[in-house]
Each structure stands twice: as C-alpha cells, then as structure tokens.
C-alpha cells in the first residue's frame, strides 16, 4: 500500500482537511490557522494545485486582492483514499 506523498506531508494534509470542511477558505485563513509563513503556504498550495487537488479563486475584497482555495473532486477522493489507507495500515499493525 502506498501513501499519496503530496497529501502525506503534515502541512498539506491540514490544508486539505480544512478545505474539506468548507466550500472555500482564503489564503489568510490558512495562514493564521496553520501558523505557516507566507512563502511556505504558497509552496504547499502550489503543489496541491499542480496535483489537481485544489482550485484557486482570485478576487477582490474591496480594493484588496483576495485568493481563496477550494478542494476539487479529485482532491476529495484523494483525501478519502489517504485516510482509508492510513486506517488500513493501523488495523494491520494492530
């Protein structure tokens, strides 16, 4: 059994988990919730986006640019599969 290496990384797993609970969340929400630096968070979401797990939405909040993220269907499936695999390993290890 192989784990999805993109999701297995702690920060990315948390990003995916947060997005699985809501319709969308913006960059600053992820930043403050996860206590990541801007650069790190950008790189993590880039990886998830390039894997097709996230959809990026850019808009304006008044005059301020706003970037929010949404989990794709592929991302939801990958996340569910990840937890299934993890639970299977746990059961096997007893």
């Amino acid at each position, binding site marked *: 059994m192989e784990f999805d290496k993109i999701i297995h990384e*702690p*920060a990315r797993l948390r990003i995916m988990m947060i997005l699985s*609970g809501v*319709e*969308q969340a913006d960059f600053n929400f992820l930043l403050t919730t996860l206590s990541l630096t801007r650069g790190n968070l950008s790189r993590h979401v880039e990886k998830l986006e390039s894997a097709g797990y996230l959809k990026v939405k850019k808009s304006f909040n008044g005059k301020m640019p706003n970037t929010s993220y949404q989990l794709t269907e592929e991302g939801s499936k990958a996340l569910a599969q990840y937890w299934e695999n993890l639970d299977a390993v746990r059961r096997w290890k007893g």
Partner: protein
Amino acid sequence: MNSEQNNKLQDTERLKEIPKWTRKYAQNRTLTILVLMVMVVFFSMFIAALVGFPLGLAAIGFRKGNMVLGCVGTAVLVAALVAIVKFYIVILSKFGGKNKGLLDQIIDRWIYGNEVTTTVPVPKSSKKKICLEIVSAVIFFICFFGSWHLAIKGYIAYKYLQPVSALYIVPFVVCGWYFWQSPRMGPIYLLSPILYAIHAILIVAGAPLFFTTENFCMFSICLPMLGYGFLPFVIGHFYSRYALKKLKDIAHLEREAANGV
C-alpha cells in the same frame, strides 16, 4: 506500540476533527446575520413610522374636517412613498441581481475583517424555492394576523395566543432552517423554535409569560419571537470563537513540520 507512536497516532486521529471544527466555525459566524436582522427590524420600524405618521395625520385631519391638516398629511404621505420607492430602486440596483450577497460580504468584512473568510455552501436558489418562500410567507402572515384577529374577537384567550402561535411559528422556523438556511447556519439555529415551544408549554402549564390587554397582546408573540430569534445568533457567535480556538489547537503546526515543503 511505544508511547511516542501512540502519541503520533492520537495526533493523526485528532486531524480528522479539522473539517468538523472548520465547518462549525464557518457556520457560526452569525454576527453578520444578526446585524442584517437588526438592520431589517430598524428599517421596517422606520418605514412604518414614515408611512404611519402622515397617514394618521391625514386621517385625523379629514375626520375632523380640517382640510389643511388632511392635505398636508396626504402630501407628506405621497412624498414618503415616493422616497421609499426611490430608496428601494437605489438599494436594488446596488445590492440586487448580480450583486446579491454583496451587502452580506460588506458586513462580514466589517465584522470579521481581521479574521479573513471561510464559507460554507450557500443553499442554491431556484424559481420553485422562491415560489415556496412566497407561499409560506403568505400562509405565515395569514396565521399571524388571523390569530391576532381571533384573539381580539374573543375566540382565543390572550393567554393562549402565544401557544397557538407556536403551532405555526415552530414548524415554519424549522422548515425555514432546513430548506433555506442549512448548511449555511448550523443546528444552533434550531434553539429558537425549541425555546419558543418551551415558552408555549410553560404558558399552558400556568406560567404568567404573556400580556393580557388588547393593546399589548401581540407582544406575547413578538417579544419571545425576537428574543429567542436573536439568541441563537449571539450564542452562535461565541461558539464560532470556541470552534476557531479548537481548530487552531488541532491544525497548528510545530516549526519543523511547518517548514517541511
């Protein structure tokens, strides 16, 4: 399995709670809805006063044969109605149609500005839903004013006005939440119909939680409706603070883990 592995396992297990707390946080950012509700209540009161005052003035004037007062009242009433229509046109052009939800966003940003945004799916609107909304609102108002009329005519004792109203208000609010608010608002919203039903039961059981005079009898319905209506929004706001704290506790990354890209 050693203790370190055990701890790791527990930490990973806790991560499964992240979606739950994120959703609870997003669903309970209720201060926006509360502010909107207060705005609607005050605006309705303002409109009622704006129309009611000149209408009363005109009625008194014409009834007493004072044509000047009657005409002034009518003129003010017409001016007020024109102003209200104009105001609605401006409001609809700014916040209606394509900009639907903009007012919510502005208030949301004003209240939770520093806290940034998360959203839960907003229930989709359709023609069928809008028709259902209008029909149920009409039924609601027929029941509301019908029971008031029956109480004034003496068919319903003032004491039982609130318990009778619970028979249509509670199902209306529960269905309203299920069809139009969920999942935007969590089940905390159901607190208001529950409290309203308890209030009705207490009255039937003999508690003096009602008004007994004709002029104030509607307060037996309106006061609990407003009070219990606002309460879940206030509780929801505090619950969202708690959910955010829980979420941060679970999702917070140690520096080493945070840096691993």
